[in-house]
C-alpha cells in the first residue's frame, strides 16, 4: 500500500467518523425534543448525507423541530427536510460559482430559504458577489423578506445588491423590510416601493429615503436662501 493510499484511507475513516458523529448529534437533539424515534433516525440519515456534501445540518434539525411542533405528518416533515438538502446544495453551488471558496453555513442556509421563496441561483450569485461586508446571509434573508412583503423578487434582489454595493452595513440592510412596511403603511404599493428604493440610487444625490418621521422644517424660521454666492452655495441641494 502506498503512502497516498494510506492518507486517502485515513481521510475516508475520519469523514465516516465525522458523519457518524453528526448523525448521532442530530438524533440526540431531536430525541431531546421528543421527536418520534423513527423520524429522528430518518432525519439523522439525511443529515449524515448532507454533512458528506459539506452542507450544514442545523437547518435540517430546525425544520424537523418546526414540523414536529406544528404537528405536521412525519412523512411531510421528512419531505421538507430532503427538499432543504436539495436547496442547500444548490445554494452552496451558487455561492461557490460567485467565488466564495468556503460558503459559511449561514449563507448556505439563507440561500436555501431564498430558493424556497422563489429566488434563482443566479440571483444568489449576484448577492454573494455584491457583498464585501460579510452580510451575505443577511442580504439573502432580507431579499426574501422583501419578497414576502410583496416586492417582486427581481426588485428585492436589485435593492439588496444595490445596498451592498453602496457599502451599507448589515444593520442598514436589515432596515429595508421595516422601511418597506413604513412606506406600505403610507399607501405606497410594493412595485412603487421597489422603484422608490432603486430610483433614489439613480438620482445620484444625497437625499435620504423617507419613511422615518422627520421634524417639520428644522427651526421653521428661514425658507431656503438661494443664489450663486460662496456662502450660499449648494447646501440645499445636499440636505
Amino acid at each position, binding site marked *: 500500500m502506498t503512502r497516498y493510499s494510506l492518507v486517502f484511507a485515513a481521510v475516508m475513516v475520519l469523514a465516516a467518523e465525522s458523519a457518524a458523529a453528526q448523525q448521532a448529534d442530530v438524533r440526540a437533539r431531536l430525541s431531546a425534543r421528543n421527536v418520534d424515534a423513527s423520524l429522528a433516525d430518518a432525519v439523522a440519515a439525511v443529515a449524515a448525507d448532507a454533512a458528506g456534501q459539506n452542507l450544514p445540518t442545523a437547518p435540517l434539525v*430546525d425544520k424537523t*423541530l*418546526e*414540523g414536529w*411542533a*406544528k404537528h405536521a405528518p412525519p412523512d411531510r*416533515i421528512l419531505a*421538507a427536510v430532503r427538499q432543504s438538502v436539495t436547496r442547500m446544495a444548490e445554494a452552496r453551488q451558487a455561492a461557490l460559482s460567485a467565488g466564495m471558496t468556503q460558503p459559511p453555513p449561514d449563507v448556505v442556509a439563507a440561500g436555501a430559504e431564498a430558493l424556497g*421563496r422563489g429566488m434563482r441561483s443566479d440571483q444568489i450569485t449576484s448577492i454573494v458577489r455584491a457583498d464585501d461586508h460579510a452580510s451575505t446571509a443577511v442580504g439573502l*434573508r*432580507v431579499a426574501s423578506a422583501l419578497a414576502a*412583503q410583496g416586492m417582486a423578487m427581481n426588485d428585492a434582489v436589485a435593492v439588496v445588491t*444595490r*445596498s451592498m*454595493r*453602496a457599502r*451599507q452595513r*448589515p*444593520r*442598514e440592510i*436589515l*432596515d429595508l*423590510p*421595516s*422601511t418597506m412596511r*413604513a*412606506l406600505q*403603511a403610507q*399607501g405606497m404599493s410594493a412595485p*412603487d*416601493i421597489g422603484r422608490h428604493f432603486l*430610483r*433614489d440610487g*439613480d*438620482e*445620484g444625490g*444625497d*437625499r435620504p*429615503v*423617507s*419613511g*422615518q*418621521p422627520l421634524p*417639520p*422644517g*428644522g*427651526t*421653521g*424660521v*428661514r*425658507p*431656503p436662501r438661494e443664489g*450663486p*454666492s*460662496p*456662502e450660499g*452655495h*449648494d*447646501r440645499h441641494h445636499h*440636505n
Partner: protein
Amino acid sequence: MLVTTLALSAGAGCLCTPESLYAQQATFRLGAFHTTYADTIAGYAGSLGAEAAWSSLRSRALLGGSVAQFEGGAWAGQAYASGTRLLLAGPARGIGFTGDMMAYGVESGPWAGLGAGGLFGASPVGQLVARGGASLGGVHRIDDSSSALATFSASLGIERSALSADVSAGATVAGPVRYSDIGAAGTLRRGVVSLEGTGGYRFGDLGDEFWGQLRLAVRLDPTVFLEAGAGKYPADVLGFLHGTFVQLGLRLTTGRLPPITLASATEGLEVRRNRNGVSVVTLRLPEVDSAAIAGEWNDWGAQPLTRMADGRWRTNLRLAPGVYRFVVVSNGHWFVPDGIPHVPDDLGGNAGLLVVPQT
C-alpha cells in the same frame, strides 16, 4: 457616515437683491470636502468647506462649514449643524428631538446666527402624515441685536413614488419680532425629471410678502444632471433682506446610493433591540386570551407572551440582529397574525418573519 458623493457642479446666475449681482461659479465636491470659485460683477471669491453626515436607525446628524475669501482679501465663514433623534418610532409615527444651528460672519464685519432645539411628533392621518414641533433657542441678527427664539410649526404631507407634497404653518417669536408662515412644498418625479416647488406667505413684523422657488433637475445620464432654479425668498429673522434669483448648472456625480433609514415597527409587530442585546417584541393580538411565541431561536418551543393594554402582547428575547422565522401559539393553534410578512414553511403552513434591528 461621511458623504461619499463625488460631484462637480457649475452654474451661472443672477442674484437680484437690492443690487443685482451676476455670477458664474464652479463647485467641486470630493467626499466630505467641497470647494467653490465664484466670479461676480463685484469681484471674485473662493471658498473651501467640509460637510459630514451621520445616520443610524433613530438618529441623523449633519455638520458642515466653509470659509471664503473675497477679491479684496476679506474672509467670511459659515457653519451649520442639525440633528434629529427619534425617541419613539413606528411606521411614519414618532416622537423625537431635533436641533439645528447656523452662523455666518465676515472678517471685521457683522455676523448672524441662530440655534434652536425642541421636540417634534409625527403620526399618520389616513393616507397623510401629520407632523408638528416646537423649538426654543436664540438668534443674533446682522444688526448686532440678539434675542431668544421660539418657533412652532406643523405640517400635513403625503409621500408617493412619483409625488410628495406637504402644507405647513408656523409661527416665530424672536424678542420683539413676531411673524408667521403658511406654505406648501411638493416634488414631482417622472422619468428622468424631478421638479421641486416650495412657496408660502410670510406675514408679521418682517413684512407681509409671498415667496416661492422652483427647482428642476433633469437626469441626462446616470451621472449627469442639468439643474435649474428660480425664485424669491423672504426677509428672515437673521436680518437678511428678501431677494430673487435664477440659476442654471450642470452636476456630475458618481451616483452613490444614499444611506437608507427607517422606522422599525409594523402595525402588528414591533421589535426594539436594547443596547444590552435584549429585543422587546410586541405583537398586536386583540382577539386571543392566551399567547406564546415559537421560532427558530428556541427550537420552536412555545414561550409565553405577557398581556399588555390594548390587545398587545410582549416578551423579551435575546437575539442577534437578523431575520428569524416564528409563529404565534394560542390555545394549541399555530398561526401568523394578520398583516405580518410571512413565508411558506414547506410543511403546509406559514412562518412569520421577525426582523431584529441593531438597536
